[in-house]
């Protein structure tokens, strides 16, 4: 069994998803089932194998340093649940 209930809560916190106490056990079961199943990859010998870093071999295309975007604050905030003078508004964050 890869994860216990504390792990589930920790993962949920990292992922910023609230999990009700009642659901933790079920979620744990589901996650473990999947993790146990993917663990079969351990059977594969991957010594000296490079992880896939790009699906197709190509040079990364780059942009020139020109300003050709932005200047559309109204569009940017158009779908926001809460705004103020084109700022996004969120609950007070304490640093």
């Amino acid at each position, binding site marked *: 069994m890869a994860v216990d209930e504390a792990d589930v809560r920790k993962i949920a916190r990292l992922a*910023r998803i*609230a999990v009700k106490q009642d659901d933790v056990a079920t979620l744990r079961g589901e*996650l473990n089932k*999947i993790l146990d199943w993917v663990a079969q990859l351990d059977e*594969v010998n991957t010594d000296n194998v*490079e992880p896939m870093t790009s699906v197709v071999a190509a040079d*990364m295309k780059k942009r020139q340093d020109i300003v050709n975007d932005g200047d559309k604050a109204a569009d940017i905030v158009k779908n926001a649940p809460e705004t103020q003078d084109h700022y996004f508004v969120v609950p007070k*964050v304490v640093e």
Partner: protein
Amino acid sequence: MSELLDLTIAQARKKLKTRDISARELAQAHLDAIDKSAALNAYILPTPDKALAMADAADQKLSAGEGGALEGIPLGVKDLFCTTGVRTTACSKILGDFTPTYESTVTQNLWDAGAVMLGKLNCDEFAMGSSNETSAFGPVINPWRASGSDKQLVPGGSSGGSACAVAARLCLGATATDTGGSIRQPAGFTGTVGFKPTYGRCSRWGVVAFASSLDQAGPVTRDVRDAAIMLGVMASHDPKDTTSLDLPVPDYEAALEGGLKGLKVGIPKEYRVDGMPEEIEALWQQGIDWLKDQGAEIKQVSLPHTKYALPAYYIVAPAEASSNLARYDGVRYGLRIEGDDIISMYENTRSEGFGAEVQRRVMIGTYVLSAGYYDAYYLKAQKVRTLIKHDFEQVFEDVDVLLTPTTPSPAFGIGERIGDPLSMYLNDIFTVTVNMAGLPGISVPAGLSSDGLPLGLQLIGKAFDEEMLFRVGARLEEAAEFTGKPEKWWA
């Protein structure tokens, strides 16, 4: 009226050009059919006003003897593609009423070619699913039913709405996306053609991202020619997408011609899985014979790491998704559920806004990337992926194309597998390898199951060899003579 709905894109294109029919009547016929199709739940947002306006514009062009490659052709758009001024949800609650101020490159290509948008199509939430049962808008019902049964069946997923709409004559073609089989598998379940191009062939800009290294846009259509027509328009090099390849788009329609003499078709032995239904095995053999009869040379080949593709996929895809979905936090768009502080706002919003399958995958993804587990899971899976890709590269030195079944079964019942995520994942067993290697694949309807349900055969090609798939797919389609059409029970 129904003859309009039964046209293929190629046929409609001709009639529109000769002004035998107008774009408006074609669009209207479809809108009427959509109105009566609530039972299928394929469309979550029909856009009738827009459709008619676009149709009228097309008619103007056509009357002047002008027009693009898809002028006046009515299409459905999977709700994963951002469409300007038209709500886009990824079939999730978390996007709320998000209305993009921008258009995805793929759909823009279609509108530039004169196509008409009928509406946004249902899909699995964030493209995560193989049955279209995870959608926040409710499941899509397969227009096909087993003989003598009225049991509701799944259309496949994640592009269930797209496949359903094409099969049920609610559009002439539809856009879809494929990350682990999400175009091909539903096409297989609905008797339609589904095409996933090579990774990088179509731009991902403006398509809601699920797994960045696997997602690809592609068409669902009624026949192979239509898929060639649609892909020819959808594909392009997009400088806004670094993973989009800078290669000219060939004439895919021209590629439909050509025989199979001397062609080497590979049959990968690892696709013969334990417990595979006999009729799938039989159809596969039938497909082999069809190609052999046309002069192709059949070769048994081996892709040794095939069985590891699915577990590797269920590490890589959730990992990328967990990061891609971090932006859905209630700050800049979509659903926001208040909280005492910013952390609870995030947690409440995301737990309310994401469905169960999405939450599961985000959690798996978070876990396999986390400290102490990255090497064992994510890195390992990416290494296995290199091996899978290498398997294909080796095999393609000896053969030109591979033939496999599309799915391990015909469409199953709504609610039958949704409670068991693992059994749901196994639907993609034949398709997921293709995404992992970044190759192109097509599903062609090939026959009916003993219950009268459609079954597809899949062809897999070399990177950027879409043309081969169109040619062989067309020949396979001719041989199969699949004329099946779901009996209309939903209107």
